[in-house]
Structure formats: C-alpha cells, structure tokens
C-alpha cells in the first residue's frame, strides 16, 4: 500500500518532470509565479527578464496622489520607448510588489490601465522591459490616506454627536466666557 507521504513524493516528482518538459498544463500559458511572489521591485523585474531598472522620462505612470480607497487605486502605464516587450506595474510596499504584467505586441499601444490594491502609502512603479532585456522605470508617490480619512470621519462623527460638550470645553478658552449651563 502506498502511504500518503509516498504519494506526495511521487506526484511531486511527476509534477517536476512535467514542469521541466513543459507539459504541465498550468504552465501552458506561463503564469510567472516567481515574479509575482517577489518582495521587491528589482527581484520582480529580474524574474520578468529585465536587467536592473534605470529611471527614464520615456515611461509614464499615472495614478492618484492621494488614494481615497486602498482597495481600488487606478494605475496606468504608457511609454514612448520602442521595442518594448512587456510592461509591469508594481507597488513597492505591497506584500508582493508586482501587480500586473502586460505583454506588448505590435498591434497594441503601450498604454494600459487597471486598478490595484494598496496596503499602505507607497511608491508605485511602472517598468518597461525592452526586447534586449533593458528595463526602464518611472515612479510616483501615492499616499493611501485611508487611516487619516477614517480618523477624520470618526472625529467628525464624535464632534457632531458631542458638539455642545466640545463647545463647552473650548468656548471658555476661546471666548473667555463661562458656558451657559441652562438652555
């Protein structure tokens, strides 16, 4: 009888075999897991076949200066560079930096937009990788001020609920008068 351990070992071996021979169905249209697991920009770009990225004015990233909702941050990338093979969108401080990768063909403009999640304020990067493996990037600081926004809302709701108490607390200092305790 085959134990669980053996079964696992065998299936792993078979999977390995498939992967090396390119027969594994999941890899037929290759999803580059290594790149999407990369924790930082450089590793992700490397896994996608680019050299160390260089900042370039020919790559444009569009995104909000202040993201109101970290679950939906609109990001766009475009470039005027020629011979671009693929473009990447990355958020530096996400658990995995790489958000999306687009393969460019001659039939499409290098101009893509999508929406991303952001855990916290971070630099967002657009990287263009050319046919000869050079990588160019543009970055943008994007504040994700959900925390501040939430504090503000809490503050306003408290303020609205306790307007009178707050006025009582502050008015004497501001106006140097005693608050009237009878309406």
């Amino acid at each position, binding site marked *: 009888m085959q134990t669980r351990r053996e079964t696992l070992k065998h299936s792993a071996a078979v999977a390995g075999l498939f992967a090396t021979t390119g027969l594994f169905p*999941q890899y037929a*249209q290759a*999803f*580059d897991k290594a*790149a*999407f697991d990369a924790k930082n920009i450089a590793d992700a770009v490397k896994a996608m076949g680019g050299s160390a990225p260089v900042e370039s004015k020919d790559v444009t990233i569009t995104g909000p200066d202040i993201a109101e909702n970290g*679950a*939906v*941050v*609109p990001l*766009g990338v475009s470039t005027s560079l020629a011979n671009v093979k693929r473009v990447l969108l990355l*958020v530096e401080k*996400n*658990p*995995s930096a*790489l*958000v*999306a*990768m*687009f*393969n*460019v*063909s*001659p*039939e*499409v*403009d290098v*101009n*893509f*937009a*999508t*929406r*991303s*999640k952001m*855990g916290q304020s971070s630099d967002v990067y657009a990287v263009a990788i050319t046919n000869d493996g050079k990588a160019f990037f543009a970055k943008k600081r994007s504040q994700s001020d959900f925390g501040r926004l939430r504090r503000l809302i809490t503050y306003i709701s408290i303020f609205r609920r306790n307007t009178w108490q707050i006025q009582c607390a502050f008015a004497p200092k501001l106006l140097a008068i005693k608050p009237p305790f009878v309406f």
Partner: protein
Amino acid sequence: MRIRAQASGDKATVRVLMSHEMESGQRKDGNGKTIPAWHIQDITATLNGKTVMTAEWGPAVSKNPFLQFNIKGAKAGDKVAITWKDNKGDSRTDEATVS
C-alpha cells in the same frame, strides 16, 4: 464581463470590467484562518481571432478588475474577445464588437 470597444482614429480603445473576487491571500476569516488567494492569472485579448495582447495579473489587482488598452488598426465591426483564467483553473471568454 463587460467589454466596450470604441474606435477613434486609427485605433480602438477597449475597456473591460470583469467580475471576479480577486481574493488576495492576505485576508483572514472569522476564525483567524487565512483565506487562500483566488485571482485572475492570465488575460488574453484577441482581435478577429488573432491574439494582440496577453497579461499576467497577481492577487494585488482590485476586485472586479478593470482593464483598458488600445488596439491599433481596429475598425468598427471588428470583434474583440477577452479571456481570463484564474488560479483555480476557471476561465471565461466574452466578445464585443468595436463601435
């Protein structure tokens, strides 16, 4: 999936809104167990049956993802089809006509 493809000049702008949970794999459920990632991995866009763009997405793309791109040389009446495949092996294809 909602697809809008509008021709303007010598190219067509394609806007796609897909319906997908895009679970990040970072969130925890009520019992503190991590909810496994469930996201669209591969996108393929075709124009009249010819692949013009492919993309790979990670779990950081927003829920119900949006995608916009331009196809050069697409005219009104051309067929644009978008296919997505997620990490559970599900896939979906929808087609629209360039207007």
